[in-house]
């Protein structure tokens, strides 16, 4: 059942990816001022949206774990965090690649960039923490705490950075990227977002399965050691 569903999801993903690529490079018009570079937008923005969604899932799963103590929620939290950090890393890589030719700089402490960067640090801490706690139950509980506290921090970080940006000089950026988006571009963006959501789902499910298997192996090992002694 599980593998059947995975197979369906994954073949759907490959089809959507092909459609999305065709749309990005052949259907969506080339942006007048930025040229071909702007195509990275169709990867950058959907990655960011889905990464944020991932951190929301970490929060919900962490909460559910503390309430139910069911290891499946811990598996979901770690899967969501890992894929979220991966996507955020890609956002932080595609961002500067796009920024350099269009804004002339690799990096600016703009509100959205900085928020993404701080989130990346918070969830990197979350993943690091997991590596340094031996006991699976302790690991699950402690990382759930970070998953909850980290998410509560997000709005505060956002307001702090937004206000901070308005006080300090910043390079002149061209109007918001999504202002007055061409309908074809919008359609492409939507398809790409759906594709990345699907990619996220596939990776998330695979990662949860791996985590569950790890838990099972740990249990078996414990039993075997118990039987031996």
């Amino acid at each position, binding site marked *: 059942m599980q593998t059947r569903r995975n197979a369906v999801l994954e073949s759907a993903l490959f089809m959507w990816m092909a459609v999305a690529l065709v749309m990005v490079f052949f259907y969506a018009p080339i942006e007048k001022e930025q040229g071909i570079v702007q195509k990275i937008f169709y990867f950058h923005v959907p990655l960011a949206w889905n990464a944020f969604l991932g951190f929301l899932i970490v929060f919900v799963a962490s909460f559910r774990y*503390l309430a139910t103590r069911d290891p499946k929620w811990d598996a979901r939290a770690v899967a969501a965090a890992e894929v979220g950090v991966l996507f955020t890393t890609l956002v932080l890589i595609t961002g500067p690649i796009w920024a350099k030719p269009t804004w002339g700089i690799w990096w600016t402490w703009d509100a959205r960039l900085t928020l993404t960067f701080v989130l990346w640090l918070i969830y990197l*801490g979350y993943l690091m923490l997991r590596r*340094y706690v*031996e006991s699976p139950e302790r690991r699950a509980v*402690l990382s759930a*705490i970070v998953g909850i506290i980290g998410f509560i921090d997000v709005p*505060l970080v956002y*307001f702090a*950075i937004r206000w*901070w940006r308005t006080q300090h000089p910043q390079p002149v950026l061209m109007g918001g990227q999504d202002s007055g988006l061409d309908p074809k571009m919008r359609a492409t963006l939507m398809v790409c977002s759906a594709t990345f959501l699907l990619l996220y789902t596939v990776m998330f499910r695979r990662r949860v399965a791996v985590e569950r298997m790890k838990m099972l192996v740990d249990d078996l090992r414990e039993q075997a050691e118990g039987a031996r002694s």
Partner: protein
Amino acid sequence: MLRVAAAVLWKDLKIEMRTRDAVSAAFVFAVLVLVVFNFALGGDTPEMRRLAAGFFWVAFAFSGTLALNRSSAIEKESGAGRALALAPVDAGGIYLGKFFANTIFLMATQLAVLPLFVIFFDVSVPAERIGWFAASFALGAIGFAAPGTLFSVVAANTRMRELMLPLLFIPISVPALIAAVETTSFALGGIDSAGFWFKLLLVYDVVFVTASLLVFEYALEE
């Protein structure tokens, strides 16, 4: 809950009074950071004065993690943390006691560094903004202690305690750090208004004391 908090606070203060570990470690580290800044940036006084608030909070953010680490490390090493966790009292009270103790340690560190900060950076606070100056220090210390207390207990449970605390705590503290720097900067005459920052710092403090209070029992259990 408050009785538990008072007992834990008293215990932490007594340990600190006898060992002077947390505050002295944080103080020495903060001094080193300030000295390194002076060398790294050439000691150009007017420029340094403009950025003084930032230097102070950098020194304080990093040295503060030492102080925060110390108080839960002592408990972990002696097994007292387990005793606390087993005690049939409200975990919220334990959190509050440790939070107050950490706030006091952080403020003590600030006060110890303050004279050096004034001398090195030649800063002066206009009389009418002295309240803002004190408020930025106090609310900043609370903002660090609130999640810092929770995360110091979380980090004490890991193999890499000294690394884990700053790794978890510094990114979370970004809003408090920005708000504290800007409020201090306002008090020193660097910027024109600090109303928003003061409010943000206040909101941050309230949110994180409350949230940490609620989840602290999970950090304690073994």
